[in-house]
């Protein structure tokens, strides 16, 4: 399950002018890379799991 804000606090701070664009984008980029890294790894891991199961069943 996942639940969160559609527009998170840091994004609101940026749009309200409370946070510098350079700080906001540096943080957002770091977060995006971390989440993308986890997501891609997860997908690759699941794909590897599925292909090894396939090998098992074909024997």
């Amino acid at each position, binding site marked *: 399950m996942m639940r969160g804000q559609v527009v998170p606090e840091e994004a609101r*701070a*940026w749009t309200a002018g409370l946070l510098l664009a350079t700080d*906001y984008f540096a*943080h957002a*980029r770091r*977060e*995006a*890379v*971390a*989440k993308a890294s986890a997501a891609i790894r997860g997908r690759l891991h699941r794909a590897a799991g599925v292909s090894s199961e396939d090998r098992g069943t074909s024997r």
Partner: protein
Amino acid sequence: MTSTPPLAGPGPDAGTAGGGVLGEPLARRRSRLRTWLLLEAGAVALGYAVAVLRDGAPATGGAWALVAAGAVAVAVPLWVKSRRELRQETDTRSAETLAIEIDARLRLIVGDVVTPIAEVVGRVHQTSGKAERESLRGQLKQLVVEAAANLCDGERARAVFFQLERSEMRAAAWFGRGEPPTTVFTDGPGDRRGQEALLLVRFHDYLLVDDVRGEELPRGAEPRPGASYRSFISVAVFCGEQNLGMLSVDAPEPHAFDDTDLNVMRAMAQLLGAGLVDHR
């Protein structure tokens, strides 16, 4: 800037040596592969030692030549195998890095930029007071140029929104430069660049130039003398039939922008147009 969110400090993947943005370091994987190859070589050496202990060391030149030939026959496939596996591993890592970069960019554009800016556009149209609406519009222009400069790929990219008023376009918001832009685009007979820029807005066009010095440009798209940028994208900002101005991003290096940057700029320009359009 203030307080609110905890933006400082390393991200979850920071400090992972050797793997770039990625988790398991390449060096660790490579050392595992090398250990495996060493084990294989060790097994061969052990086999040779057992043979020597049982039958004695080679006594003749022919026997030594046979041993040398055997060593080469073992070493060459091992070397070829290690090279091939290392190359495959590097290719896999490159594909993985690329996939992560693309996924991260998508998250950044859609989740961290378009979503909050769309919310501001909504607030512009919800606000009843004229002063407050104008203030939100000023904020929106600034957010869009900040987003354009940060999302487009060029290093040291700068972005400007030129607002159209009474057949002239002046900089209304900018990001990435120390001095405010002084360019004014007019439709005066001597201002060819101005005429072309105004035509671009009137026809709701965009223009991407890879290198202002390296390719033949349409008349009026040439940079002014002494300009420091080499590549740029300019996009008309409009909503329906209402022309509002031009959003531009430029970079000092050639070929700084690609199709993706162009699409980002188109989306930013349309968001800005949606926020600036007047009710009829």
